[in-house]
């Protein structure tokens, strides 16, 4: 009787132990459905019509590889290029390519292909193929060229005559419906190794509410989460993963200030916004108040820029101006939090005698914008923000923190941009998605992600 009594217990314990091990050990297979709000219409990395948004960055790096990679600390690592070397003056760089890397169509990665691809993305560069390397020559010193090569536009793509495009990334394109849906299949011969996931289906153009509904219904495994949603979702026990603050929310003036009075008013507006209250309430504690373009974790000097409102200073500035114009502030009507942000800023501005009129029109005096810093490299991030905001970015003139500070100060001195907040990229994932992570720059780490057997079997059924 005793034997019969403990034997089932032992057997069941062993079965449970095996199952538990199986649930914690990566396994191949399964389809992961991802929803994003952006809706890119092109997957070509060199397509200049597409903005360098985070979503594009992530999609590109699922299909393509760059010559270099960058870690969360901002260090440039080898990718398709195994090593690189700069000539004195940082104008001529040579990148030695990884050997035996094949495109997803089986063709071998060659220096000529890489050089052609980079020339397409950067027409001003002189890119020359060598035996097992390429040589990039720039007109001006480019000390950050290895970091610049991590940008999505510099991903290596092979453009076929039939219009298709292939890369060397962990997934290849199985189905592409521009702006709607992208289906990626695991690349068996990826030089990094086959990813665990068989299929990744990415639905585009889904608003945040629909994405959350899909996640809660189990239809979607990975969704984007806004800052104001994060707190509530977290309280409900959802799995949230965030990047470092990588997105800048700012007010962007359409035109330069034309008069001293306008400069005073822009100064007043910059110091009257109660960023802390907005972060606490509207952003539900997410992100950081910002008065600088680069987040403090990236630049190290962000704390130098005060974020506390100075209403007295704002009023003093405003009182020096006799005629107060009514500024129209544009915002994205599809952005759930943008309107509240603009209305609150208008309320703060009214306290010091400024007049802001929220509007969804495209023709406004200034706009509330979200600018992706994209890279963990501060120089690349600053340049990207300047490019997207159409701000003049001067000669770096050095590579030190002081040079970076001066460059950022120069951008802010134009008074075109009033930084407000740095927000992280936050994602909510289903419980069946394992080993999924986000880089500091918001990039997806799907190559190591896998699905639990429950989800995998469910998909098979």
């Amino acid at each position, binding site marked *: 009787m005793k034997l019969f009594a403990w034997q089932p217990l032992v057997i069941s314990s062993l079965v449970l132990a095996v199952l538990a091990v199986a649930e914690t050990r990566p396994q191949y297979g399964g389809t992961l459905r991802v929803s994003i709000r952006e809706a890119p219409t092109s997957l070509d990395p060199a397509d200049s019509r597409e903005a360098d948004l985070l979503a594009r960055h992530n999609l590109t790096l699922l299909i393509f590889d760059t010559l270099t990679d960058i870690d969360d600390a901002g260090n440039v690592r080898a990718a398709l290029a195994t090593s690189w070397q700069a000539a004195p003056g940082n104008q001529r760089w040579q990148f030695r390519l990884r050997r035996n890397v094949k495109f997803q169509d089986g063709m071998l990665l060659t220096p000529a292909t890489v050089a052609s691809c980079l020339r397409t993305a950067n027409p001003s560069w002189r890119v020359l193929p060598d035996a097992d390397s390429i040589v990039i020559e720039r007109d001006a010193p480019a000390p950050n060229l290895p970091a610049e090569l991590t940008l999505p536009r510099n991903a290596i793509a092979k453009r076929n005559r039939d219009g298709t495009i292939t890369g060397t990334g962990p997934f290849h394109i199985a189905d592409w419906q521009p702006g709607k849906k992208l289906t990626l299949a695991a690349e068996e011969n990826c030089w990094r190794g086959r990813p665990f996931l068989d299929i990744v289906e990415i639905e585009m153009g889904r608003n945040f509410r629909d994405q959350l509904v899909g996640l809660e219904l189990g239809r979607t495994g990975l969704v984007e989460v806004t800052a104001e949603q994060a*707190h509530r979702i977290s309280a409900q026990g959802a799995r949230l993963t965030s990047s470092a603050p990588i997105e800048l929310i700012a007010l962007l003036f359409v035109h330069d200030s034309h008069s001293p009075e306008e400069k005073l008013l822009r100064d007043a507006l910059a110091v009257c916004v*109660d960023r802390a*209250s907005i972060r*606490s*309430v*509207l952003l*539900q*504690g997410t992100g950081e108040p910002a008065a600088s373009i680069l987040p403090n974790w990236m630049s190290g000097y962000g704390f130098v820029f005060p974020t506390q409102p100075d209403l007295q200073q704002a009023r003093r500035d405003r009182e020096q101006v006799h005629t107060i114009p009514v500024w129209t502030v544009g915002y994205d009507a599809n952005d759930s939090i943008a309107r*509240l942000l603009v*209305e*609150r800023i*208008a*309320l703060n501005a009214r306290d010091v005698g400024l007049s802001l*009129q*929220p509007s969804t029109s495209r023709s406004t005096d200034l706009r509330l914008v979200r600018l992706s810093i994209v890279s963990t490299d501060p120089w690349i991030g600053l340049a990207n923000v300047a490019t997207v905001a159409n701000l003049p970015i001067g000669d770096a003139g050095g590579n030190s923190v002081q040079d970076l500070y001066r460059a950022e100060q120069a951008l802010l001195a134009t008074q075109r941009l009033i930084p407000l907040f740095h927000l992280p990229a936050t994602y909510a994932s289903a419980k069946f998605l394992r080993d999924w992570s986000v880089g500091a720059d918001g990039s997806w780490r799907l190559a190591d992600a896998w699905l639990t057997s429950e989800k995998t079997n469910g998909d098979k059924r």
Partner: protein
Amino acid sequence: MTFRRKLLAVFALTVFLSVATVGWLVSTLSRRAFELADDERTSALVTQFRHEFNRQGEEVSRRMEAIAASEPVARMGLAMNNRAPDSAAYFDAAKSTAENYQLDFLEFVDSQGTIISSAHWPAKFGYPEPAFASLSSMAEKGAFLKQEELQDNAALGLFAVRAIHVGEHPVYVIGGRRLDRDFLSALDLPAGMRVLLYLNHGDHSGSESLINPSRSAETPETNRPADQIASLIEAIRQNNQETTAIVHWSSDRADDELFHAIPLQGTSNASPKPLLGILLVGNSRRSYVELERRIRTTAFLVGGSGILLAILLSSWAAARVTRPVERLAGAAQEVAAGNWNARVEISGNDELAELAESFNHMTRELLTQKERLVQAERVAAWRELARRLAHELKNPLFPLQLTVENLVRARQQGSEQFEEIFRESSATLLAEISNLKTIISRFNEFSRMPRPQLQLVQMNDVIRGVLQLFQAQLESPGRGQISCDLQLDQRLEPIPADPELLHRAISNLVLNAMEAMPEGGRLSLRTRGNKDNICLEVSDTGAGLTAEECNRIFTPYYTSKEHGTGLGLAIVQSVVSDHGGTIRVHSEPGQGTTFVIELPRNPDTLQDGSEKNQAETISSIAAE
């Protein structure tokens, strides 16, 4: 104006005044009745609005009670009583709650008056509620009016306040419904009435707004009150009292509206209470004006028809009344024209019939008298003629008788002088017989007056010719000296006349004047002319005539002279009449005599007058 027209005017005026008086009375009474109905309708609507206002207020209060009693709000109240309350978690609570309870305004305010969450202005979290001091005292009370500041403007709402006491620090729920187009549209208004709501935002005209539920929300409008209403609104803003006024939207009175303006005041303890808005209850006067117009049009139609009918009836009545009078007048005119046989038809048995009978009797009497007079005159004329003839014939007959008796006596006596006597007697007989023939030829000549042969004749020339003929007699030494005074108008133009007859007539007058002055005197002949006639005056300084003689002097065979035939002046009158002219005599005994002849210039008149006078002359002679 004729008697008939006077009668007609009196009748028509009487009817017109009657109709006008009735129309005015009806219009006045209907206007008063409509004004009374307007007042009653406006009063009913105001009462209805107040009832609706109270009902909405009760509904708001109920919903606020429900919100205050709900579990999420209770949890929020509990959270706000924590040692470190986190209001950020509730910043959007008001919006969802307001949507659930269908409120336009909702705020959660902590015990310090800080807004935790606002549905109508979500960005206002963390700001103090401006009216918290007064609102907190309104907790657990009924609904009240409050002006709520919004991001772009301000709105008027019906608010209620409730407090949530779950700890030491209460949380206040302030919410309400907006007094807007929907609220006004929910009012059940009678046809022709409407309600406008003016939101008083102070003296800044740019922020004025007038809510008109009859206008489509999609219709672009300035929301500025029209100038016609602006004055009424300004009056309310000044005195803060209910006012009624008529607003004229256009020159058409049918577009007028009677507005009853009700000031909507806030709950502030200040005196006077702040004016938050003005409710304008408009009552269209179109129905009244149109009815008034219909009444007026009907009155005009009835009045016009009445007047027309009155004119017709008056015409008939006036004709009926005046026709006998007109007949009498016509008959009288006929009598005046010489038709003494005129008679008036007698109809009826009234005064006019008696008058007509009297008229007929009068004309009969006149005719009888005339006939008697004519007969008497005819007898007198025949007697005069007989006397003249007897007188004229007696003179030649007596010598004839004596001569024949002498001749017979001489023949019987056989006198030797018979032959001489016979010759003398024969000569005497022939002379007297000649004399008789002359007398007979003159009578014959008068009876055979020729018709004038017209041609252009210069009157002055005829006169000169006559005077030249009589010049020798005028200067004859055997009689008294007669001087001739000739005053001829040299501007006289020729007239159509018969020169022979004129010469004969003027000669008769000159001869008559000479005979009237056997002892001498002055003969005057004067001519003058005017537009229609020329005038000839022949005057003497003789013995003159009596009035009786003046009246009869143109009668044929009448003469005042011992040896006259009485035909000279009759011939003159005949000639003048044949020329369409007239002759009259002015004379007094001892003052001489003046004959005045007027002859027409116009040939047509001459022809007509000539023919007429010729006809009269012929008739007269034939009658004689």
